[in-house]
């Protein structure tokens, strides 16, 4: 038989439109929705965990910034340390007045710890059960300086500071079982009954006060044997000159022995605490990454099974004119769609968790854009890696073998 060779137009496979790639990639997800949902869920949980961890740590960071800007970062505290020989040091009685003379200092207040006066709920409580509560003599301008607010009652005034009246710190009130201040509420301080005139809210920049009982300076000297030496001084200064103030503070508070006082900036401690929790957040982020990886393995598993099950479909598509590349693209698209669905769901879930928790804690809710974009990029990368091998396998399948599968 003679073969008739004739010139024929060159053949070229048609390019698939992006919409068609998506449609073909979604075939497997449409026909097995539960399986698609479950394997997308694996990815979603991983991404949700990561987004929530980033979101929560950003939100608590934003909350700290908000707190600091409300509390001010210009508070410096001076506390009496120890002498060179290791004994408790004393600041001079007029330390507060001296500090107030420093130019940029806007406000100063002092407290004096009265070690020997212990506070109890009543006379019936055994002496040993101090409950970790300290008694302080406090100057009247203390709340204004440290930014303390009252949860109930009032602060001491020029009258009540001379009489047995006390203001309790937040934790003290809880430990003693006192809900609110009132004329009938009394505590025993150093053997003397004091009427509770106020209860403070937690004081973020002076946490020592939370577990304290605060009484007036004169009454402390008169009835509790207080020596009149302040143990901690709180100062507010002009923000710009804070460093300058800090340098002269020790010398001003205790000119005779500047080395015996410690100067600190409480807002630094808060920021340091935040840095510690950041390290913990990084650990959680790692856990989230592991969850994401496990989700990716789930997607790879789904894809391998999908290719095995759909051999007949692959054979049919090849007979309809699909090139190897188009089969590969189909399964890769399916894997990417699967992970993108999981990733999208995970970002929504993680954002919802962040917003819910932030709302619950009264924080501003912040989910950084880099977390959502990064999360989506990570899922697409995982999807591509999970789908690559099954897709290549599908494309290498011989069409006749695929068609012979019933």
């Amino acid at each position, binding site marked *: 038989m003679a073969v008739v*060779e*004739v010139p024929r137009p060159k053949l070229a*496979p*048609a390019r698939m439109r992006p919409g068609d790639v998506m*449609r073909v990639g979604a075939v497997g997800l449409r026909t097995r929705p539960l399986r698609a949902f479950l394997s997308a869920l694996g990815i979603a949980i991983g991404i949700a965990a990561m987004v929530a961890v980033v979101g929560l740590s950003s939100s608590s960071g934003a909350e700290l910034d908000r707190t600091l800007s409300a509390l001010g970062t210009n508070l410096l505290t001076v506390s009496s340390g120890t002498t060179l020989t290791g004994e408790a040091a004393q600041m001079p009685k007029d330390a507060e007045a001296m500090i107030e003379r420093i130019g940029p200092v806007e406000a100063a207040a002092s407290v004096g710890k009265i070690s020997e006066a212990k506070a109890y709920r009543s006379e019936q409580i055994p002496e040993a059960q101090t409950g970790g509560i300290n008694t302080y003599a406090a100057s009247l301008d203390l709340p204004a300086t440290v930014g303390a607010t009252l949860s109930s009652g009032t602060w001491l005034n020029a009258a009540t500071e001379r009489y047995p009246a006390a203001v309790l710190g937040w934790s003290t009130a809880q430990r003693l079982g006192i809900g609110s201040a009132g004329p009938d509420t009394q505590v025993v301080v150093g053997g003397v009954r004091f009427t509770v005139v106020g209860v403070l809210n937690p004081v973020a920049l002076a946490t020592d006060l939370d577990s304290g009982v605060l009484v007036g300076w004169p009454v402390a000297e008169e009835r509790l044997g207080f020596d009149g030496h302040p143990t901690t001084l709180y100062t507010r200064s002009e923000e710009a000159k804070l460093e300058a103030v800090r340098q002269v503070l020790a010398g001003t508070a205790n000119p005779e022995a500047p080395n015996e006082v410690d100067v600190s900036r409480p807002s630094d401690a808060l920021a340091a605490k935040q840095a510690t929790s950041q390290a913990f957040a990084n650990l959680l982020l790692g856990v989230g990454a592991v969850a994401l990886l496990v989700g990716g393995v789930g997607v790879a598993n789904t894809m391998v099974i999908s290719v095995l099950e759909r051999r007949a479909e692959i054979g049919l598509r090849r007979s*309809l*004119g699909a090139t*190897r590349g188009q089969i590969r693209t189909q399964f890769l698209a399916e894997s990417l769609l699967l992970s993108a669905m999981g990733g999208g769901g995970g970002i929504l879930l993680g954002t919802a968790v962040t917003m819910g928790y932030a709302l619950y804690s009264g924080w501003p809710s912040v989910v950084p854009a880099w977390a959502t974009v990064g999360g989506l990029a990570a899922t697409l990368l995982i999807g591509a890696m999970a789908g690559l091998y099954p897709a290549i396998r599908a494309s290498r399948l011989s069409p006749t073998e695929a068609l012979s599968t019933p």
Partner: protein
Amino acid sequence: MTHPMIQLTDVSRTYPGGVAALRSVSLRIDHGELVAIVGPSGSGKSTMLHVVGTLDRPTSGTIHIDGYNVSKLSDGQLSALRATTIGFVFQHFHLAAKVPALDNVADGLIYTGLARSERRRRAAAALERVGLGHRMDHEPHELSGGERQRVAIARAVAGEPPLLLADEPTGALDSVSGTGVMELLHELNASGTTIVIITHDREIASGLPRQVSMRDGQIIADSAVPVESLAESGVA
């Protein structure tokens, strides 16, 4: 026509393990023919369909489909040839489950590069042509066997390929549905499509204008070629 639709020259296909499914087969089918390739199972007729349909490559020999030398084409070019020139009909239909008939047919055109609206328009026309204009929204499980095979035929001809290859198209159907499907294939042939039907059913084969009989990977009879010339070529 200056070239035949199908031309096989000394085509052999040996599977790994030494099984020779086709042994030096030569066959020419012209445009517009309606041919039955008939033979018992194991005669090599399925392999014949696969190599003619460019789904499988022969071990030796040359195949020309619509003038193209198949052995000189890349995978992409072969795919393009299948997309534009060859329509397949299978014994078990291979329809996508839970997908309406119209989309089953329209999705068959996805590799031709046509836009979706055009694919759906052509699919609707193809379904009208096979007499299923009233069943376009039905999913495969809502259709009878005969109707499913009609959908599959509509998918094969929606792109108007000049060649239609049918592998036991009535194999999974009862005789009434089978007859209907054969009538449809006759109609398609009358409108110009070259059709090759693979079957083991001699009754069906005898209803077609040309029969090519196969056994043990060789052509033992061809109603279009006198027995003597087959003998001359050393095949029989």
